[in-house]
């Protein structure tokens, strides 16, 4: 087995040995969807959201929240590995340090896709929310959103001195980002100022792109550019400030 496959398999095994990480990254988003969907008003068409059912607005929000959860655990894990010398130990072997990063990203992407599929399935089966009509657009939006969110997670890992502080910083950062993604008030219900800000946040742009693709359109160029921009800036800074020890 190649180093990358072996590392990805090992990291995935380790991930499943952390019940808290597993709960928040894999189980929490579907639970939130079920809780929201069990409120009758959420399933009714709502005039203040342009006649859409609120629950169908929440499906992309929860998919993006799943990504943020993985980014959070990614940042904690990496900062902890550096703090404990795991990365330093690896530097003395022929494996390129970037392979470790690749393994983590592969695992996070793979598992987050599972969460996404579960959320879409629950939405469809339990609450009759339509599946994405424009599948390629949905996948492109999803990958762009994942890249942007993971790049921010890696930036936090690069800057935070310890695993604990990485977790705290990531939570502090993702909380306002979740607000702008529409977790408390979907974008359709935001006033113009809030929605304009949300357009420029990675999660807000991600939610809107997923929603557009679900409705059958390609995402707006602005939102794709915003996600790419965050990926380049955060990813670049993460690469610039990353330390292996």
């Amino acid at each position: 087995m190649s180093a990358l496959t072996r590392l990805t398999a090992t990291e995935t095994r380790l991930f499943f040995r952390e019940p808290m990480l597993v709960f928040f990254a894999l189980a929490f988003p579907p639970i939130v969807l079920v809780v929201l969907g069990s409120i009758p008003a959420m399933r009714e068409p709502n005039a203040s959201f342009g006649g859409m059912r609120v629950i169908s607005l929440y499906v992309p929000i929860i998919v993006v929240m799943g990504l943020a959860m993985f980014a959070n655990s990614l940042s904690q894990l990496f900062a902890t590995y550096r703090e404990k010398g795991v990365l330093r130990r690896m530097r003395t072997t022929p494996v390129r340090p970037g392979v470790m990063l690749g393994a983590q990203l592969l695992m996070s992407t793979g598992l987050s896709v599972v969460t996404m599929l579960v959320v879409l399935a629950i939405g469809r089966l339990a609450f009759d929310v339509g599946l994405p009509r424009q599948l390629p657009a949905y996948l492109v939006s999803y990958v762009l959103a994942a890249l942007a969110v993971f790049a921010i997670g890696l930036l936090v890992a690069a800057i935070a001195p310890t695993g604990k502080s990485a977790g705290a910083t990531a939570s502090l950062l993702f909380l306002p980002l979740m607000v702008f993604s529409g977790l408390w008030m979907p974008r359709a219900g935001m006033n113009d100022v809030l929605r304009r800000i949300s357009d420029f946040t990675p999660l807000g742009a991600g939610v809107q792109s997923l929603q557009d693709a679900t409705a059958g359109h390609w995402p707006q160029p602005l939102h794709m550019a915003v996600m790419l921009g965050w990926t380049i800036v955060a990813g670049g800074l993460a690469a610039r400030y990353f330390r292996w020890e």
Partner: protein
Amino acid sequence: MAIIEVDGLVKRYGDHTAVDGVSFAVEHGEIFGILGPNGAGKTTTVECIEGLRTRDEGTIRVCGIDPQRDNGELRQMLGSQLQESELPDKLQVGEAMELYSSFYRNPADWHELIDMLNLAEKIDTQFRHLSGGQKQRLSIALALVGNPRVAVLDELTTGLDPQARRDTWDLIEGIRDRGVTILLVTHFMAEAERLCDKLAVIDSGRLVALDSPAGLVARVDGRQRVRFRPSAPLDHAVLTALPEVTSVERAGGQLVVTGRGNLLLAVTTALARNQVVAADLRVEQTSLDDAFVALTGRPIDA
């Protein structure tokens, strides 16, 4: 040809010069020790050799490769055991071995390594549940899993109990017998004396001596002391007349004879001629500790 060559190595951290012009060469199949007090620059020296740090001056070649320009080839041949580095808490011993094997082109049989290091029963144990000695043995196993030509072991036995330390020493000799050249960083005299074929003594970033343990001791002082309780009164002149003897002193019921060369044989022969039996006979030689004090002006743990 030397397998490791270090020439004029200088490493600075800001204004502080951690390593100041250190040069030495390690021959194939040797156990080469770097001995010095904490903070002397030992670890910095080996980290430059491992390619973990960039040197400021000098040249280093390991198996003919400059560690700073290594494209992964050197890391195939150099196994490292680092001070203070850990594995993920919940990674099992067997998983760690399997993972690290996958990093190398021609890995060793890790099951055999685990057997040799007495970790076979711990294959399914998570890293966090291992004892200090078991963690150390695992880190040695990981350093050897790539079938390296050179293994760097940094403060390997620090924190181990005396029995575990002796077991580890046996193990290191076993590794050398497999043809691996070993670079051993230590601040334990007994360890250096027992294991090393050659020693570089480093103090405050400078190389103060480079020799075999016996050579270092001999270089400092060839004196020996013989201490015994004579079975009958003995005229000191019998002993002072011997060319090997420099002085004779009485300490309680004991005589302490100081001298050089084959002192023990000379003294016991003279005693036998005078029908005196030497009870509680002990020979005290200048130790590596004494040598270290003479070289650096202070004991190693001061």
